[in-house]
């Protein structure tokens, strides 16, 4: 075994963070038992939250956290894409834009920006409304979650450094709820968006008697219109349901909402 692994050079890997809370990189740093293995199983060239000797050169594999929210970040993410082999959007901000991309619409982003910063402008950055990574570059793999799940990350990482394609759950949080034998919160009349949300968190909130807020983004082929019908039957208003759905799922849910309602 040993002889084989030394023949092959470790992959060059980078981790970058754009706009967000740094929670996905922190999930990795918080994985104390696996941290030393993580740093030795690949050549971690860039990881600016964890180290200062970063090297921005060509990468075989790159993980990007955060959404894009300035003109400078647009250029930077394109520059990273150009020198990287396989690109993973890591966490909800990178995958769907995150909370800052719920596109509130009503007054427009410019007005909201002004309400916070007044008439001032920033010299250091040119801010734009937050968008997910795939609004600007090709994404090869999506690893959602707010934050990502550590087991899921290390499984994806281990697969990718061996050049195999990782499998992701294609079922909703409800699947995990059933395995944990949680009582269904929807049956109790609580607004839970678990049926529309990708599994991966281990049904973290329903296991604490609390509804799913949708922080892993939409499950593949989520049936938004039937969930809407179900929730309306339970007595929730369209406004309440829309507000809840768009909180964490950004671009992932807005398309479906636009299909159902036209304007969102």
């Amino acid at each position, binding site marked *: 075994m040993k002889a084989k692994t030394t023949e092959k050079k470790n992959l060059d890997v980078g981790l970058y*963070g*754009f*706009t*967000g*809370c*740094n*929670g*996905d990189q*922190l*999930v990795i740093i*918080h994985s*104390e*038992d696996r*941290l*030393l293995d993580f*740093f030795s199983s690949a050549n971690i060239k860039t990881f*600016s*939250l*964890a*180290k*200062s*000797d*970063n090297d921005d050169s060509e990468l075989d594999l790159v993980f990007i956290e955060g959404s*894009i*929210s*300035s003109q400078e970040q647009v250029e930077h993410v394109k520059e990273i894409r150009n020198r990287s082999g396989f690109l993973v959007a890591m966490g909800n901000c990178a995958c769907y834009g*995150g*909370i*800052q991309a*719920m596109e*509130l619409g009503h007054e427009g*982003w410019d007005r*909201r*920006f002004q*309400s*916070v*910063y*007044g008439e*001032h*402008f*920033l*010299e*250091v*950055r040119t*801010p734009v409304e*937050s968008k997910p990574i795939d609004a600007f570059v090709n994404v090869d793999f999506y690893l959602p979650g*707010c*934050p990502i799940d550590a087991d899921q990350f290390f499984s994806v990482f281990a697969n990718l450094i061996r050049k195999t394609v990782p499998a992701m759950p294609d079922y909703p949080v409800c699947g995990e709820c059933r395995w944990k034998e949680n009582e269904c919160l929807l049956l109790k009349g609580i607004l839970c968006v678990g049926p529309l949300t990708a599994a991966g*968190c281990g049904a*973290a*909130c329903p*296991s*604490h*008697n*609390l509804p799913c*807020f949708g*922080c892993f983004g939409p499950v593949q082929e989520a049936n938004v219109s039937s969930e809407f019908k179900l929730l309306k039957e339970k007595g929730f208003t369209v406004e309440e349901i829309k*507000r809840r759905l768009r*909180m*964490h799922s950004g671009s992932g849910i807005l398309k479906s909402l636009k299909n159902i309602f036209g304007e969102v």
Partner: protein
Amino acid sequence: MREILIEPLARVEGDGGITIRAEGKKVKEVRFDILEGTRLVETLVVGKTPAEDLSITCRICAICTLSHRYAALRGLEKALGIGVPPKAQALRSLMHLGELLESNSLHVFLLALPDFLGYPNAIAMAEKYGDDVIKALALKKYANHIMAVTSGRMIHGENPVVGGFGKYPDRDVLSDIKKQSQELIPTAERAVAILAGLSIPDYFEQETVFMCCEPGDSDYGIVGDSIRISDGQVVDASEYRMLTNERFCTHSAAKHCLYNGKPYTVGAIARMNNLGERLTGQAGKLFKKHRNKRWHTNPVFNNLAQAIEMVWALEQIPKIVDSILKVKNDPPIVQPSRKEGEGVGAVEAPRGTLYHYYRIQDGLVADANLIIPTGQNLEDIEKYMRKAVEVLLSQGADDQTIRMQAEIIARAYDPCISCSTHMVRFERDVK
């Protein structure tokens, strides 16, 4: 024109940089640039329910997620006229201590110590300081475990809700947390010993003002309804606007704060300077041994203050766990008594005082204002860096020396840049 640019500033949370410009031996400009993208969080929570607000604002920052949650809970519960039962209060104290330990250990061991020991990161330190790195990671893991157990997940757990908790942790798990706390005290003491042994340069020292929450009893603490200032004043937290007085700077996506027109410092060093005399036990002994008058003039001692605070937190945990276990039955979630009101919640995040103000109308957030610790420290960070650069230029120092010293000062404040871009103001009626 001589220019030193540090971008990005590594081993801090978020996207920040330092810009230094000089002509000959004269400083033209020293800036701490906040480059993080804007998220306009205070506009996102308007029109949301209190539960939705908690789910959004905790995501401002992954390191201080529970401080944001706790400050929001305190603000929202004041607005809604909710008092939580003692068991819920004690569990909140435990989660808050868990986060303080997590953040202080992350900063002391992984982010700050490599500077002083001459390494690019903590993993590289492992060769010479292997045992210390492993023990440090064990302490951090324990702190993360407390956060996961109390909040429901390691980061952005939703278990602490308005009026209480979704679910209380198992008694066995809590008993284990109590037991382990004592085994980890030597690790925190070791951090104190390493940091106390470093020689800290004094050429940038100058006076400043310190602020922190006043716990309201005679103990050291990290939460309170009023604010203690090092000039001797104690001011109600609802006066947060007067205390922090935000203003805009073109090089920062975070607004800067001034108190009476002057820069001030928040964080572990402010808490130790204002409340440290109240410490008892091992933390009290260490405080008396290491604290000196330079703590009032040199922000780099914040690292040591954080380490002593870790000892304090570990000594508190058994008492807190006992007070949770004392109550056998888990109290139900307390429901709001009204749908209108306003309130300010103040807590000490690991890096300083954090305010969440809310006005609630028809059960929804009508107005929110969040004031974040790093924004409050920005003026002082620049003040100390400027002095350091002035002195180093006069001595003919090279770029690398200037760069290193500026980084050490900025990093000592344990800046949280994701947080600081959200300390922004927004006022609007819900239409």
